């Protein structure tokens, strides 16, 4: 049995660098505290080499040339930790959430997938790098030895089974996770490495340090064995970025959104999932607004911080961060936030990845990702409510449909008759069959235009609308329909189908002569509540 441990050194710094990759390689310190009393809580090795020490004030750190200062972000640390767990679950279902910067995996049974333990460790290291974290990975036969090796050695470390003591003995005593007082006591005794601790007699150590002493002795020898405490897999995917300077324009915002989406997609890839819904929550800069009361007092009131939420529901689950970024951009272009943005929080609802293979004999439809992007662009062009599929409603109203989103399916089964049914049809060909009829087309006029109708003996005889007039040569009606009288928008109409001859002398105006028909069949209706005539459309 083998266990792998992933440890992220300088975790707080790395979580900030993960959100801002441009900081990688530079001396970086993280400060925390209330604004006048900023103090350094974490620094990377480059900053420490430059002379920065933990606990320094912000003013002191600014004296160091080339050292960059960022505020500590707990949200980014949580996101980095969640991403670390995702890496673990991408390899093995048995993962222990040991610490915020450390996880342990059970490698049992993974040999068939990755081969030797070294390959598994290399794969873990690569996957962690993909989510923006530089890990220490160690593989050992027991959990504690793997943790100590990962905390103590950089890169990939393989501790052979039964030989844990030899490599672990070189590690400094500070590698052990224990109380600071115990560590100081050991250092006072001159114990500076695990080898020295392992050489101490366990009985006397127990007398002086209690059970903690015995535990540390076992750890130093690499002999402590315990079982894995499994972490429960979570499907929460959130990333957050807090900005020093507010962002007003879409272009710089796109870079930040792209970065968050890259991180989200990398995490989802690790879990073999895809995005179904994206929630983007922008924290906006508090704006100064003139209040009526404030104007009276000749002062300005500072409004509370506002939030702007954008929810993007995708018809098909996808994981391409570039496509997602374009969709979010198009959505923001249509409805941009009204104030500069201070903080961005992005969360994803997940779904199983779409199966790419469709039926061999099904016609190939548009690529779902591409189609979603096309629909988003069309929505930007003509409005979101003007693109989609029509859904018929169960009503007798004239406009008996509503617009719905494209369902996402692009492969539809053919509804043509099957070969068997066709044979049956051929066999019964002797029966007289009704000729197939082409359905008539009707062109709606939206909104319906008002018409002047001359009525004689309860029937329309002359009609004029839109600068046109003509004589009714044939009519059918009235076809009365009414409904939903109990609602405000109920209807009560008498419809007529009219054949109109527009070519009568004086009936066709010169400006319309080129594109109006000389003869046409239209549908008009008399709106009873409004006591007016309207043209619904033309048969075409």
């Amino acid at each position, binding site marked *: 049995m083998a266990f792998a441990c992933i440890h992220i050194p300088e975790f707080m710094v790395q979580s900030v660098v993960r959100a801002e990759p441009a900081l990688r390689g530079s001396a970086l310190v993280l400060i925390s505290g209330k604004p006048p009393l900023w103090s350094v809580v974490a620094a990377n090795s480059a900053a420490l080499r430059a002379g920065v020490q933990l606990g320094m004030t912000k003013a002191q750190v600014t004296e160091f040339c080339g050292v960059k200062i960022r505020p500590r972000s707990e949200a980014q640390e949580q996101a980095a930790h969640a991403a670390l767990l995702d890496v673990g679950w991408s390899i093995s279902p048995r993962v222990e959430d040991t610490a915020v910067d450390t996880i342990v995996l059970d490698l049992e049974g993974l040999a068939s997938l990755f081969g030797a333990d070294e390959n598994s460790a290399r794969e873990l290291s690569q996957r962690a790098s993909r989510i923006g974290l530089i890990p220490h990975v160690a593989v050992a036969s027991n959990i504690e030895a793997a943790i100590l090796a990962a905390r103590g050695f950089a890169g990939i470390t393989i501790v052979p089974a039964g030989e844990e003591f030899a490599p672990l003995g070189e590690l400094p005593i500070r590698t052990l996770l224990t109380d600071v007082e115990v560590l100081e006591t050991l250092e006072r005794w001159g114990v500076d490495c695990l080898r020295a601790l392992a050489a101490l007699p366990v009985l006397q150590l127990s007398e002086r340090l209690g059970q903690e002493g015995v535990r540390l002795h076992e750890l130093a020898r690499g002999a402590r064995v315990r079982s894995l405490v499994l972490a429960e897999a979570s499907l929460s995917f959130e990333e957050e970025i807090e900005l020093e300077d507010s962002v007003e324009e879409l272009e710089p915002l796109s870079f930040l959104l792209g970065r968050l989406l890259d991180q989200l997609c990398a995490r989802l890839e690790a879990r073999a999932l895809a995005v179904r819904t994206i929630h983007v929550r922008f924290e906006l800069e508090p704006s100064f607004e003139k209040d009526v009361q404030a104007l009276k007092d000749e002062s300005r009131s500072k409004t509370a911080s506002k939030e702007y939420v954008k929810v993007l529901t995708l018809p098909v689950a996808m994981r391409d961060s570039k496509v997602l970024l374009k969709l979010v951009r198009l959505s923001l272009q249509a409805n941009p936030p009204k104030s500069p943005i201070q903080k961005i929080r992005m969360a994803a609802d997940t779904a199983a990845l779409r199966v790419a293979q469709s039926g061999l004999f099904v016609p190939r439809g548009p690529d779902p990702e591409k189609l979603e*992007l096309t629909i988003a662009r069309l929505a930007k062009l003509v409005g979101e409510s003007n693109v989609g599929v029509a859904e018929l409603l169960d009503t007798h109203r004239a406009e008996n449909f509503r617009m719905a989103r494209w369902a996402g399916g692009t492969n539809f089964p053919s509804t043509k008759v099957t070969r068997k049914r066709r044979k049956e049809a051929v066999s019964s060909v002797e029966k007289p069959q009704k000729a197939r009829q082409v359905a008539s087309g009707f062109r709606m006029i939206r909104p319906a235009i008002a018409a002047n109708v001359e009525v004689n003996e309860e029937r329309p005889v002359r009609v004029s609308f839109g600068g046109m007039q003509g004589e009714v040569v044939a009519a059918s009606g009235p076809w009365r329909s009414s409904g939903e009288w109990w609602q405000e928008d109920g209807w009560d109409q008498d419809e007529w189908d009219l054949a109109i001859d527009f070519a009568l002398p004086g009936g066709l105006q010169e400006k319309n002569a080129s594109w109006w028909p000389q003869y046409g069949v239209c549908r008009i209706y008399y709106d009873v509540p409004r006591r007016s005539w309207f043209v619904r459309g033309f048969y075409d």
Partner: protein
Amino acid sequence: MAAPSLAALRSKIELDLRGRVVSPFNYRDRNIFEIVSTGIPEIDAVVGGLPRGAMTEICGPPCSGRTSFLISALAARTADGEACALVDARDSFDPYLASAAGVALNQLLWVRCQNADQALRATDLLIQGGGFGLVAVDLSDVAPKIVRYVPLNAWFRFRRAVEDTPTILMVAEQEANAKTCASLVLRLNAKPAEWKEAVVKRSSVRDLRDLVKYPFARLLKGFEIGADVVRSRVQCANDLPAADENVVNEIIVNKFDARHTRHRAGVFETVVGAQDPCAPTRQSAKHRA
């Protein structure tokens, strides 16, 4: 320096054009298309059908049957399981009637535009997106003088975009404007509508009295539509006789049946007969007739 051989030169050119031109030395006849049905057998019998990877123009004056043609084509394509798109320049599409005609609405992406400019931009986006079996552009209600001002390079762009794709680009308008970019141009015209007079099956004094009182107790029966082939450069791959250019073929499309449009009201029990306008109105039923 020795002159390179013809074969070496040829392979070098092919290597340089790799990825851009599939086979630069092979003649490709651009007039051979895969043909699919328009949904109207009479038209299919003459022109073969709609060519894939090409532009088809359907023109004619208002009330000449362009919408009927368009709906038939959409119904045929969606019945084949293809995804279709309709760019509706003046928002005049009637989904209920289309559904009744057999168009699978869940397979039809409907783009409701307000003007020709939006329609052309939307068409460009849809064609570039690719994957649709049929992209229908309905410019029927746009004044011809506006469509006439659409630059020719826009039509060329559309033709180039659909080339070598399985997409049919069909434009319905009042005049043919795409010139040589269209591989098939049909002009439609309709004869006056036919009406079905009321037939009283069970003659009674009351029915006869109603018939006398309402002489317009009739039903719109349909139209008779003719189609002229203005231009056809389509060579049918399936050995159908290609329509010669400039040869006018008269096609009589089956008479339309407009009865289902009356059913939409869903109020009347019978399809023939008028109601007394003064009679109390019946509330519409919850279910569709």
